[in-house]
């Protein structure tokens, strides 16, 4: 009677290995490995999300250096709370929620600081976000690259003037392309609220960007 000594002899080795491979590369598995002290697993997580998180916070705060700091703080918090992480949500939802909270608290800190800025002269009387005076340049531009750059800068400025409750869902939807369900989980609100806020945000942007549309 032959005794099976290796798993290959079972005949379904390739499928099993594939499952193991997928499991070890999932975000959950990487976080489990991080929890057990695997630094390389955490480095893999960082390499997967660093650009997304940095970009998302940059779109929220319109400050690149601050966004890099906050992105690092996001990963530090993930690392510290690896033991308390629960699998009920996707890891991307979890890390985006941390990043959103950090970005919103940074925006509120800025609001408290009340920096003297020219935008303060155009603050709305109802206490809303300041509307930046951003008249479109009517002169024709020779280069299409310049046009694109100018348009992107205008969009970024327009987004940064949106109220924070409209800003986050708009970025998550139109820039990052996330689903309403995921956005609702990240922002800890309902899907209906998310849809409504995105619609309002687009309405604000249409008014601000009418010269480019």
């Amino acid at each position, binding site marked *: 009677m032959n005794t099976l000594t290796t798993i290959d002899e079972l005949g379904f080795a390739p499928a099993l290995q594939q499952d193991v491979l997928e499991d070890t590369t999932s975000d959950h598995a990487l976080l489990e490995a991080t929890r057990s002290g695997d630094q390389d697993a955490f480095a893999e997580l*960082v390499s997967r999300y660093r*650009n997304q998180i940095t970009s998302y916070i940059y779109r929220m705060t319109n400050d690149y250096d601050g966004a*890099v700091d906050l992105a*690092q703080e996001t990963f530090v918090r993930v690392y510290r709370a690896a033991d308390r992480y629960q699998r009920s949500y996707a890891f991307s939802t979890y890390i985006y929620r941390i990043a959103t909270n950090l970005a919103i608290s940074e925006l509120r800190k800025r609001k408290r600081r009340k920096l003297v800025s020219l935008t303060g002269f155009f603050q709305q009387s109802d206490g809303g976000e300041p509307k930046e005076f951003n008249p479109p340049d009517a002169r024709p531009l020779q280069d299409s690259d310049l046009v694109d750059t100018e*348009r992107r800068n205008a969009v970024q400025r327009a987004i940064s003037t949106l109220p924070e409750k409209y800003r986050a869902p708009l970025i998550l939807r139109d*820039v990052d392309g996330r689903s309403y369900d995921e956005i609702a989980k990240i922002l800890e609100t309902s899907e209906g609220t998310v849809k409504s806020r995105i619609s309002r945000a687009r309405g604000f*942007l*249409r008014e601000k*960007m009418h010269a*480019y549309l």
Partner: protein
Amino acid sequence: MRKNICEVTRRELDELMLDETCSTTAVDHLRECGACREFHEKQTKLRQIVGSLGTVPAPADFDFRLRARLANESSSAASPFSFVAWQSLRRGFAAVAVLVVFAIGAYLVRNALNQPTAPQVETAKQTPAVRETVKPPQEIVTPNAAEKPKPEDVAVVPNKRPQGNRIERPSLVAIFGNKKPLATRELSNTRAEVVGNTESVGTSAAFPIDATSVQFFKFSVDDGRGNAKTISVPTISFGSQRLMQNANQFAPKRVW
């Protein structure tokens, strides 16, 4: 009715992703309604512009900085007196400090409330004694009662000292509630010892004035024609000596 269809169509267009196709109902409405068609075009263009923002890459040293930050935090957390530990202990220290300050304050207040009567009694006892120091010069002890000055003798003795010279501030004790007695020596009620010529100078502990000097000062005046006149000056006593040893800083130094 048409307005409702426009709202429904716009909501559907709003919720779709750019690459998704809308329903046939919406397509039919877009063919008919120019306003919704314009809305759809502008909305699509806006979303394309926003979507063109893309991803901003993290800096190249992102991983390195993150590792350094984590290493720094872990090393600081390992030390017993780390900043994080201090942050957690700070509230405890603040609470203990508040309790200590409160206890000291309560102790001082209780002391102040319990002891104001004692100095007042002392003051009340001392005040008449101070007033008794103003005595007429008749009570001045003369060394020898038989040697009273004769009427013809010119005795330069002040009848009464001006009251203004005596600075009485017994109320200071009551004001400040100081338990300590004033740094004074009240000797006005102490009778000066009469010391004879045989005794050594300065042996009297009660009144440290050289008693040998307590004698009549006599001198004779002769006008050159045989008319001599003897003038006897009795001892002048100032009664008491009250030395203020920095007890009254407002009074001039060495006030008698």
